[in-house]
């Protein structure tokens, strides 16, 4: 199975990178863009083929390592 994990900043946490992108886009002449937010995506190949167990495993990875609960949220997509 493949897992795709999105790690995004919690709302309320400052995202300077998002701000910089907004600014740069407007400098480039793109109008009407706002609320740019940035995050990470992590893709993994899993040996596990059972979706339920895979999700549990990836959830644990996120809680232990891949996301920092103080500042980040995550969501997991699984595909085969």
């Amino acid at each position, binding site marked *: 199975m493949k897992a795709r994990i999105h790690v995004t900043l919690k709302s*309320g*946490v*400052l995202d*300077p*990178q998002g701000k*910089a992108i907004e600014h740069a886009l407007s400098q480039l002449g793109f109008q009407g863009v706002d609320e740019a937010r940035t995050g990470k995506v992590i893709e993994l190949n899993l040996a596990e083929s059972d979706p339920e167990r895979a999700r549990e495993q990836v959830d644990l990875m996120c809680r*232990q*390592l*891949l996301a*920092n609960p*103080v*500042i980040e949220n995550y969501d997991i997509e699984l595909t085969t």
Partner: protein
Amino acid sequence: MKAAVVVFPGSNCDRDVAVALERAMGRPPVMVWHKDSDFEDVDLVVLPGGFSYGDYLRVGAISAHANVMREVKRRAGKGVPVLGICNGFQVLTESGLLPGALMRNKSLRFVCKDVGLKVETGQSLFTSRYETGQRVTFMAAHHDGSYFIDDAGRRQLEDREQIAFRYCDERGQVTPEANPNGSVANIAGIFNSEKTVLGMMPHPERMADPVLGGEDGRAMFEGLVEALS
């Protein structure tokens, strides 16, 4: 006094802090490899600056799970003092020994410069050689030094006097302009509630020798030696 400096893959201020410690202690600290799960008894554990694991994923995140950190946490729990500088501070927040998180500088750029710090309390193992309210100059050199904590957490830090240093200007004023990285409330360093663990972004070890442009950092190491000998 005996001290240990933990070496993670990618640590790069381990030698620098060892030199500063040796000058203060009169003997070199033990260097502890990140894969070790135990090390000899010491009076102080130092997590040095650098880019452990390349700062990949999140600064300090991968190192927080190193073998040696289990032991560091155990000892911190027993009251052994721990000092985390720069990347070491990041490892401390990631491993839960200190609250909050360190994020990308607001400018998005690495910043290397002298920074003024206001000593928020002289009442700790680490700051006993400074006066409360004193202004000192240390060196900041980081890409991810923006300290974040939510409002409730910040109030708690303030109420329990856990803030060790704040960025300040020439006159010792804590102003937005003096904040080099966007840290909440200009926070540059914090203690745990017992004040036995200190994490700070600026480098005292780079200001421990007149040749390097200042000596304000030396007092921290000398104070530690005095308190822990």
